[in-house]
């Protein structure tokens, strides 16, 4: 049986919009922002915001940007080739792309990706990349195999790398670095 989005671009677009609103809902869940609060920020009715989340239809890019910006997020539209030209398997969860980017140290340009390739180890890259961007006094660093990530806080502009730990295999866990970057943005 073919994938449910393989029959028309309309269905594929609907799936993309549902994936997008799911990302917003995850962020709202994480931050505790309600639909009502988002509606107020966007100067829209709560009913309209609920409608977008319950049945996004074919959202315009402008609407996507408005909603994401309302939550302090940004939007990137990407095209990718997953070796499935007939779309037999359907689209990939957009969270996969976000997590991949975060686990790569949230590179902001292609040079950072190149640096990652050239680094002696993934962990070296991750730590050096993060510390370059966020001058810190390292308090406690454990040598760990990849993948690892850095946790820290960035209150009052003082960054404290309090722990470097293993990725624990729990794919539902967000790398804290992503939260830090969001806060510092």
């Amino acid at each position: 049986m073919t994938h449910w989005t393989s029959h028309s671009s309309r269905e594929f677009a609907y799936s993309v919009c549902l994936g997008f609103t799911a990302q917003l809902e995850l962020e709202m869940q994480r931050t505790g922002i309600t639909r009502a609060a988002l509606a107020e920020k966007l100067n829209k009715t709560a009913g309209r915001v609920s409608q977008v989340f319950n049945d996004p239809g074919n959202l315009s890019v402008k609407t996507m940007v408005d909603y994401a910006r309302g939550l302090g997020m940004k939007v990137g539209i990407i095209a990718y080739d997953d070796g499935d030209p007939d779309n037999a398997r359907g689209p990939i969860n957009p969270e996969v792309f976000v997590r991949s980017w975060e686990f790569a140290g949230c590179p902001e340009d292609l040079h950072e990706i190149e640096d990652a390739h050239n680094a002696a180890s993934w962990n070296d890259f991750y730590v050096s990349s993060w510390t370059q961007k966020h001058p810190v006094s390292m308090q406690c660093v454990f040598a760990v195999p990849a993948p690892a990530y850095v946790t820290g806080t960035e209150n009052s502009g003082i960054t404290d790398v309090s722990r470097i730990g293993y990725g624990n295999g729990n794919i539902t866990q967000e790398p804290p670095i992503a939260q830090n970057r969001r806060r510092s943005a």
Partner: protein
Amino acid sequence: MPLTGITFHLVPGIRQGPRRMVGFLEGHRELNAAEEFDSLKENRKAFVRSSIELWASGSNDINERFHGFTNDTEYSLSYVFKVKDNNVNHRFYGFLCNPLLSNPRVRVCVLCIHARKGQHQTDRAELARVEQWRLSSAASEAMSAAYPDDLPSLGKGKRGEVLPWKTK
């Protein structure tokens, strides 16, 4: 096909994950999730399919769309997918299990029962029914048929049974 007539099949036409999969338990009048899913409007079906795909690909619970009951001591293995259609809130209740002893990382959400609910209401009666199905030999047999596993039992549980250490 199991002798009980209860069968399990994956939700068709969606991207199932290698580690997480979602399907319907069928073969009894109480097991109405598949039938009710089929009767949803196309765009509501798409919503549920999208939610299932998100979960199957490893997403966190999105409480407005799908979530477990991990803090509920009685029904910690129950799971629900939600969709709203105008003023009707559809709920698809099921349970989580690890059907393969040979690969305990494979987790399956077995959808059993459909219900119409108020906005934030979860009827524990539905969860109780799901739990009964989870513990039934008919469901266990259906899961064993759907996920044949040649690994001999290690004496730590029957095939299809959810072991406590697998629930964490």
